[in-house]
């Protein structure tokens, strides 16, 4: 009974959302957006016909928005990730950590394959990070990919527990570095996170990648440890 009610209610809400969106002059139809009147137009025009030095703006506008125009938001986002990994560590952290025992034994194929895969994934991740200015999503996917490569090692080798504290350290350093870069901007141009040299953008992208990778690895590490009995 409860499920039927919930079903009806959820469906009703979905229908209401669709109906209210289809009859709304504030909300354009699918594929019919006019963002050239909106706030995005500024980002696009400065990109397309702007007189800015080409090296200063990333080729990918999404990355440009993330690290340049809305760099402050990204700083906040990095902080959220940072705080959530701290939260996980607080909730799951134990005094004397030990790697958790998985229920299955990794067989030969898995361990060899995963090691082979690790190198590819890791390098791809670094590649993406280095080409973050063109790739969609900036350096986030790169960071995530680096983290996944580590996770694969976790799965394949039950004795594996790299010194992930280095990753955690990298994450902290990256987050601080972000602020530091911002402060450099403040020092040179009077604006926080000012983009006055191509180097700034690159640094930020690399730092974000390290931060994401470190954050995810830290979280995974926390999940895969338990207290030594």
């Amino acid at each position, binding site marked *: 009974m409860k499920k039927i009610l919930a079903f009806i209610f959820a469906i009703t809400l979905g229908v209401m959302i669709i109906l209210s969106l289809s009859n709304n002059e504030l909300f354009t139809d699918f594929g019919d957006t006019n963002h050239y009147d909106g706030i995005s137009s500024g980002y696009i025009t400065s990109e397309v*016909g702007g007189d800015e030095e*080409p090296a200063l703006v990333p080729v990918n506008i999404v990355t440009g928005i993330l690290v340049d125009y809305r760099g402050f938001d990204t700083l906040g986002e990095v902080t959220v990730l940072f705080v959530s990994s701290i939260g*996980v560590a607080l*909730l*799951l952290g134990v005094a004397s950590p030990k790697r958790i025992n998985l229920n299955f034994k990794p067989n030969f194929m898995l361990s060899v394959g995963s090691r082979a895969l690790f190198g590819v994934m890791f390098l791809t991740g670094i590649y993406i990070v280095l080409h973050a200015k063109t790739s969609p999503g900036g350096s*986030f996917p790169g960071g995530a990919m680096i983290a996944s490569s580590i996770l694969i090692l976790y799965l394949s080798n039950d004795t594996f527990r790299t010194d992930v504290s280095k990753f955690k350290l990298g994450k902290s350093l990256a987050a601080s570095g972000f602020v530091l870069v911002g402060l450099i901007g403040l020092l040179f141009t009077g604006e926080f996170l000012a983009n006055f040299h191509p180097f700034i953008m690159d640094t930020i992208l690399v730092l974000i990648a390290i931060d994401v990778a470190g954050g995810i690895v830290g979280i995974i590490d926390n999940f895969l440890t338990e207290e030594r009995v």
Partner: protein
Amino acid sequence: MLLYASVLLIVIGLYGLLTNRNVIKIILSLNVLEIGLNIFIITVGFLDLEEAIAPIITLQQRASVIVVDPLPQALVLTAIVIGVGTTAIGLSLAKKMYDKYHTFNLDEMGEE
């Protein structure tokens, strides 16, 4: 169509939230809901034109080109990362609950 798909995902997520009493399932429903929302936001910025391209502009294209709205994409990128954070926190809470009550079901915990 993509819009309906996103709404469908949202509805599925809500249905899951309304009916499930299992913590893991609740978190999964939340993730489904979140994905639906992200897709929905992305669709807002979509431009259904032949000449519209992804917002990646190389030097050759620095003439006037038509691109899809990059802003929703940037926002969604942020949202994904934050979603990872919330999911991680939720899962670790679930793990804690499991350690304490030895069940993931909300109905079976509570009374000590």
